[in-house]
């Protein structure tokens, strides 16, 4: 190892320079990754942390650099130990009293108090301060670093507050070290004079004179000092190596312990809560009638009360009638029935042209017919379409409102469609009785125009009945609310009739339709007779042609039943639905339809008597009854 090389004096051998630059590396990394943690909220720190890949990465880098630094400590101990114990180099780094006087002298010299500057040896007081500051700093940083790295282990032996204390010390010491490097070290090696020795390993003679004059003097005076024999050094080396191996092993083990001493925290993310997030109280809530339903039923009761005050009892307000009660079990009125069997159905139909299920009614409301309850006007309807498809166009009186419901739900034409192509007298078990459904006075009045009844093709029928212009509409005769007819209205025209007599006694015609020779009885009586004849003819035809006795009742649907006991009267179990008449021939069905039609329209004698008689006559004739005594209008 040559101390002098030409005019260059060796200052640092390569081990020194390696140590230095490794220290530079680890220190810089530690300082950078440490200070950004210490001053984490500052803008620069956030940018740097972001650049380095986040705080967790920064911490890993910091710990890697710390490990490197600790390994350097071991290396340094090895190099220093080798020099001291093997090479027997006198350690000149330890401070002594001359350093204090040098420092004072230096201060005085700089201030111009003394003219002579202090003469430094191998290491100036500045360099010794530097070195021991690093040693001190390392000790503090390693100690507090261990505490921060292993807080659980630390708090086994020390109070918990040692951790924040260690954190504070670690950060403050770091700041101090960085300041020392920036101020002290960089000034001395860069600013004051650019010292290349850490790069080249050498200083020039001038530099030596300036910085280390005593060492220069020593080198020059001791140039001939004989070196110790190699054998002695080898002997010492032999002793040193195992000792250092043991020491360094212990140190390395310590470092390993340092970095793996404890598992401080879980790496996983602990969920903050451990409860079931979705835990519904009840199954999906369903809409249900609220407690205000009671309030609503009170309201319904009040409605009814009010209605009774306003409305006389009539078929329209008979809340007990089957026409309103039939749907009670299902809770609302079916769509197809709602038009005429609920208070809201008719206005809904009139407004929308369609029907929909309606709430149960206990009769009609004022608003069922009146579209305005200040003037009490009723819905104006330009025309009514009958089940046959015909319409009442041209008639704009208020009858249309009544006819909307009072026109039956079937037409005779439907039967023709139903039995089209069938033999008139062949029983078909698939045939069922066709019911006009209720009274169809609206259809009756329109006669041939409405074709509500079954009209035989061979005959022609009366059309619209004009019961004089004064009594042309429903409400001319019928009281719109009570629905009854005031007999006194009839007296004016029907001479000989007085209001004490039943309406059925009225007649104008002098034709004896029923062939009983009595032309003073009411036209209703003529009709009654024809109905009786038709009933007989139906029964006769049924037993002879259809092969099954038939019996009729107007009380129970479907009205025609099998006459089990041949009593000609529907009674007892005969009116069970299962006993309904099923041996229909087309001919029988048509006549039965008409029979039921005329029975249902009990006012038929006034609505359109001649049309009724035509129907009965033609039905009788069709069934092959003797119509010789009868007259067809």
């Amino acid at each position, binding site marked *: 190892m040559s101390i002098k090389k030409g005019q260059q004096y060796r200052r640092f051998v390569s081990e020194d320079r390696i140590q230095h630059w490794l220290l530079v590396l680890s220190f810089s990394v530690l300082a950078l990754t440490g200070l950004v943690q210490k001053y*984490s909220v500052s803008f620069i720190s*956030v940018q740097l942390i972001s650049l380095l890949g*986040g705080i967790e990465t920064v911490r890993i880098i910091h710990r890697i650099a710390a490990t490197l630094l600790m390994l350097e400590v071991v290396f340094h101990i090895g190099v220093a130990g080798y020099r001291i114990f093997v090479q027997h180099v006198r350690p000149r780094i330890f401070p002594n009293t001359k350093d204090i006087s040098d*420092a004072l002298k*230096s*201060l005085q*010299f*700089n201030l111009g108090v003394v003219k002579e500057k202090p003469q430094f040896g191998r290491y100036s007081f500045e360099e010794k301060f530097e070195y021991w500051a690093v040693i001190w700093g390392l000790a503090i940083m390693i100690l507090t670093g261990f505490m921060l790295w292993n*807080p*659980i282990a630390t*708090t*086994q032996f020390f109070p*918990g*507050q040692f951790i*924040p*204390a260690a954190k*504070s*010390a670690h950060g*403050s010491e770091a*700041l*101090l070290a960085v300041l*020392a490097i920036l*101020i*002290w070290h960089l000034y001395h090696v860069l600013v*004051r004079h650019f010292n290349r020795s850490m790069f080249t390993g050498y200083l020039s003679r001038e530099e030596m004179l300036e910085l280390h004059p005593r060492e220069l003097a020593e080198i020059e005076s001791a140039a001939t000092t004989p070196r110790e024999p190699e054998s002695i050094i080898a002997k010492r080396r032999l002793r040193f190596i195992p000792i250092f191996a043991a020491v360094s092993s212990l140190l390395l083990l310590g470092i390993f312990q340092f970095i793996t001493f*404890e598992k*401080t*925290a*879980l790496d996983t*993310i*602990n*969920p*903050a*809560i451990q*409860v*079931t*997030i*979705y*835990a*519904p*109280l009840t199954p*999906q809530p*369903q*809409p249900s009638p609220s407690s*205000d339903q009671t309030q609503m039923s*009170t309201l319904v009761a*009040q*409605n009814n009360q*009010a209605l009774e005050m306003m409305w006389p009892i009539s078929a329209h307000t008979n809340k007990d009638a089957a026409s309103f009660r039939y749907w009670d079990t299902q*809770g609302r009125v079916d769509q197809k029935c709602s038009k005429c069997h609920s208070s809201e159905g008719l*206005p*809904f139909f009139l*407004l*929308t042209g369609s029907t*929909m*299920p309606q*709430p149960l009614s206990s009769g009609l409301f*004022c*608003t069922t017919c009146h579209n305005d*309850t200040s003037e009490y006007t009723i819905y104006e309807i330009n025309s009514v379409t009958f089940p046959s498809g015909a319409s009442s166009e041209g008639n704009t009186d208020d009858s249309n409102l009544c006819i909307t419901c009072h026109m039956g739900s079937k037409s005779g034409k439907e039967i023709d469609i139903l039995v089209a192509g069938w033999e008139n007298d062949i029983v078909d078990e698939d045939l069922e009785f066709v019911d006009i459904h209720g009274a169809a006075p609206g259809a009756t009045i329109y006669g041939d125009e409405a074709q509500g009844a079954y009209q035989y093709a061979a005959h022609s029928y009366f059309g619209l009945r004009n019961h004089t212009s004064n009594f042309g509409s429903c409400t001319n005769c019928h009281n719109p609310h009570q629905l009854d007819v005031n007999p006194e209205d009839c007296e004016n025209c029907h001479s000989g009739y007085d209001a004490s007599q039943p309406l059925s006694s009225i007649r104008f015609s002098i034709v004896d339709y029923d062939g009983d020779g009595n032309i003073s009885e009411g036209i209703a009586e003529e009709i009654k007779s024809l109905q009786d004849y038709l009933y007989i003819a139906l029964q006769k035809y049924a037993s002879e042609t259809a092969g099954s006795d038939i019996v009729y009742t107007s009380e129970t649907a479907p009205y025609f039943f099998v006459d089990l006991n041949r009593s000609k009267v529907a009674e007892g179990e005969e009116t069970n639905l299962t006993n309904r008449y099923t041996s229909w021939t087309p001919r029988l069905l048509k006549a039965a339809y008409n029979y039921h039609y005329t029975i249902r329209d009990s006012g038929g004698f006034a609505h359109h008597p001649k049309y009724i008689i035509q129907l009965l006559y033609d039905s009788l004739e069709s069934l092959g009854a003797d119509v010789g005594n009868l007259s067809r209008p």
Partner: protein
Amino acid sequence: MLNKLSAIFSFPVSWIKILVIALGISLIGVDVFTSVKPSAAFSSEQTGAVQAGPNDLCLNCHETPDTFIELRSAERLNLFVDSYLYNTSVHGIQGTTCVQCHTNISGYPHPDLEAATQREFTIQQNQACSACHADNYQSTLDSVHQVARDEGNLNAAVCSDCHGAHDVAASPIPRSDVPQLCGKCHSQIFELYKTSVHGGDLLDEGNPDVPTCTDCHGIHEIRGPSQSEFHLFSPLICANCHTDKNITDKYGLNPYVYETYLSDFHGTTVTLFEKVAPDQQTNKPVCIDCHGVHDIRRTDDPKSTVIRENLISTCQRCHPNAAGDFPSAWLGHYSPSWEKTPVVSGVNLFYKIVIPATVFGMLMFIIPDGFRRIKKRSSKGES
């Protein structure tokens, strides 16, 4: 069909009915208007018959209790609508008509239901709200509920689950009603919340200072821990109140809890995550990780997770090996003091002296040296 509807609008059926009833009632001399359902009052006095009409049309059928339609899943959808509830709802009062929400209904028969289950129907119907409440609806699209639903969890709440369907109340509802509302689906959380210092005060005393569900989770854009940034940013939610001296003074609370949290390891990390990687999760705890989430208690409550006796087990949730005096390593939201933490204060004081002293010492050598050299160089230049 539109023509038909317009026809309805011009015929105030229900209005007539009401008048008739009223007339009848006055005839029998009984003042029953106090018990007449509000629908009548509203339709005649406030909204007019024009709007009440079409609703009545619908209610003709839909007010029949226990009316069901069977869906494809064999579930039964209850078609009943309580007109009393509807008419007292904010929509009923304002005169919103049925078809404004049930936009696919324009007459009878109605179009077939596409939904196979009740829940599907509810979710489909949810769209309707967006027509009038576009902003709030838009907000919900970022909510945890929407995310959960997108992931296939149909139970996640839609508008009507919170607001009701036909009985929507005017917003805002009282703060103290919010927990019950959320508790309909989050009952376990509600049970926890009730026991907490916040929930207890809200539900028992109606204290306006404590948070209800929506104060932390938001209202329509409901946030939750399933979103990583929620956990990360949650300290800011707590800080809203816990750094507000008006509130902390009122209850004798430490207003520096956030500050001290941030300056410590956990808070620093969380803050850095917030700033650098808000989309990432950190396992460092936020307020709720130590204090509890919905069951936050007073710090002197024996059941508190952060009372000294329980603190070690709270630490052990993340530091399973924690033992000894480990919990004291955290100064408990207090700045170091000589009384409580003399070692920390000692260290702080030490460096408070040593750092400036060292720097001063170094400069004492460097500055005169520098001056001397400058002087020497300039004097050399002169000579």
